């Protein structure tokens, strides 16, 4: 929930000694409150344990076995040793890192720029609509469109030929790292709209008086953005960057549909490696080891990022 729930502004929370609240609070009965709290929490906790914790614990357990779906034998850390010594896994980690950096720079950066740049423009809504529209298209449909665009003699090659830019024609999806870069561009086309929407919500929550005060003090343009607007967008930026990091670490559908991780394993990401080991090769133990590694990376990245960003401001 921390990823999707921006911090609640302090003024929105009623003070504890608010007389209107005091009148509706039930009289305190010792011993009942913790029990009632536990009862309210139980369904959520049960679901999380059942659907997340238990499967994850089983995945960890399974990663210590050589498991082909029919027979299972204990191999200790062999699956992890094999994973870390496989060059394809190193490539997969590198590609996943590219995705994290790429989706931070492009959809998040562009989303912020478009939201701030078009916020108060007359035809800004029209520009934003054009950017947000691809967000309504599913990931699979996006991949189909971009396969047509990026395959040999596809839409992009035809366009370049029309413009007389033949030397720029490339094997967009067949050469690494160009294929990973192009897939990030395709994802940017689709995902920027979501970032624009979130940043617009953030911009609308900035009190106009703050901006007016800054403008009266002579701030404008870049100065106004860096010194006033951007700091005020901090809660929303935390959410957008957090979602982007987690989303890019587990990127799967675009890569599967655009390059299938290839040629060879050149454009594979961690999620695809996990899929290949588990569902193509039926090596459930090896797939589980990749899943555990990916989970640890996602949780560690999220924890490190949010812990730093959501730390209470020092007085």
């Amino acid at each position, binding site marked *: 929930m921390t990823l999707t729930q921006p911090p609640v502004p302090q003024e929105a929370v009623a003070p504890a000694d608010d007389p209107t609240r005091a009148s509706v609070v039930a009289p305190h009965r010792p011993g009942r409150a913790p029990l009632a709290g536990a009862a309210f929490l139980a*369904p959520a906790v049960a679901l999380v344990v059942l659907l997340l914790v238990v499967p994850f614990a089983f995945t960890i357990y399974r990663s210590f076995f050589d498991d*082909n*779906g*029919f*027979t299972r034998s204990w191999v200790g850390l062999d699956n992890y040793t094999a994973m870390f010594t496989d060059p394809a896994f190193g490539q997969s980690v590198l590609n996943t890192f590219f995705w994290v950096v790429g989706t931070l720079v492009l959809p998040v950066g562009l989303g912020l720029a478009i939201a701030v740049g078009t916020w108060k423009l007359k035809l800004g809504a029209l520009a934003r609509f054009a950017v947000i529209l691809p967000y309504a298209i599913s990931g699979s449909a996006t991949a189909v469109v971009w396969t047509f665009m990026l*395959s*040999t*003699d596809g839409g992009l090659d035809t366009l370049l030929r029309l413009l007389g830019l033949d030397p720029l024609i490339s*094997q967009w*999806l*067949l*050469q690494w790292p160009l294929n990973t870069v192009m897939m990030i561009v395709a994802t940017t086309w689709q995902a920027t709209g979501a970032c624009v929407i979130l940043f617009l919500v953030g911009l609308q929550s900035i009190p106009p008086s703050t901006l007016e005060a800054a403008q009266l003090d002579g701030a404008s343009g870049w100065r106004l953005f860096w010194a006033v607007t951007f700091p005020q967008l901090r809660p929303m930026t935390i959410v957008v960057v957090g979602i982007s990091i987690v989303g890019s670490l587990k990127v799967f559908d675009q890569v599967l549909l655009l*390059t*299938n*991780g*290839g*040629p*060879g*394993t*050149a454009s594979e990401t961690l999620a695809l490696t996990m*899929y*290949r080991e588990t*569902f*193509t*090769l*039926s*090596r459930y133990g090896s797939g589980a080891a990749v899943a555990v590694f990916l989970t640890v990376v996602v949780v560690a990245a999220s924890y490190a990022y949010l812990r730093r960003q959501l730390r209470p401001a020092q007085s």
Partner: protein
Amino acid sequence: MPHPIPGGPAMTRRTALALGGVGLLTATLAACARGTDTRPSAPGTVTLNSDNPTWGPGYDAASAVLEARIGYRITSRSIASVANYNQIIRMTAQTNSTTDLIKWTNGYRLQDIARADILTDLNEVWDDAIGRGWVDPAQRESFSYEGKAYGVPLYKSYYAVFYSKRAFAENGIEVPTTFDGLMGVAQTLKDAGITPFLAPGATTWESEIWFMQLLASIDPDYYAAVTTDKASYVDDPAREAMDVWSGMYADGFFSAPDVTSNDLPGLVSEGRFGMMLYGTWFANTLLAAGLTDDDIGFFRVPPRASSTAPAVLVESGSLSVPVKAHRRGAAVDVARNWLATDVQEAWVGFLGDTSPNPAALPKSDLVKDLAADIAASKPTELIRYWEASPTPLVEGNVQDLGSFMVTPTKAHGESTLRSMEARARTEWKIWDAA
């Protein structure tokens, strides 16, 4: 101001949550219940699970004949995603939630599940079918593991060159009978502005097609040996195959490797199609796309040297019976009668492909001519690469070959073979130890 919507007692948040919770629980329990598809089927039917959703009418056509023979029809269902299908079969075939019959592949992929003791021994069925002349006995080995057969051929396809009759006629080209003749045809087409070979495979299984064909044309015995761990991937025939393949790329004989076979009908209508080496099962797709025997023809890739025995690559599917099938006896009966000539005639009448039963021929002249050619010349039949070695070895090597198709230099050919050989050493050790 009065409330705009008059009504009865308002639903509280707790009531809404409780109702939602009960609904969710009910849905979860319902999802855990056994579906009708995994219960015993209706009397007089056996269930079949497959990964090809378009084959339903074919099973119906074959069922009409089967019903007359043994009183059972096939009720087919399918899961379109091959990866999902494989996982579902691996899981359900161990339980009584399985269907009575399953479609699977032959070769090492069949051996992989056969050694988990989840399939019925069909040796008697094979003895019977061979005795009646319904199947080539040479096929039995690719359906067997440790002397027991675990499936009968569901279908049988060959790998042959689809060619444009129009392009050949317009450029005065005859169907080649030698490998050098085939290269000459490719050069003529290229000179006429037509890309000689449509060759998909950069990131798909199709990267194996030219590799296995070149090995089969250069040395069929070596192909059989290298796929069964009796030879090395860095031996001379494999090096020669990669050199020839690389040379053909250098000569501009191949399309970009990220084309798809589905481009073929469009290219034919634009007059830009030359040839494509592919499975004969694809003929059905072309006929469905409106092409006819007048547009497309077939020929086999000739041996590279005249002294080499002709060989053809064969793809087959397996019709297998899980041990835990509800109607196991009836399913074995269906398998026993599946290869009967009248059942196969109905089946290939739908498929438009060749049959495992040499006496059953499809209606289309396209495949009929190829089947007649194979029956007359009796080439060595080699199992397709996809099923010819353990799955992880094939999957990894196919990825390497796809990578080679993107950068088809001689040096990359060498490094591809070294990578394939290194994987072979690892994977054979794992296979033998299992």
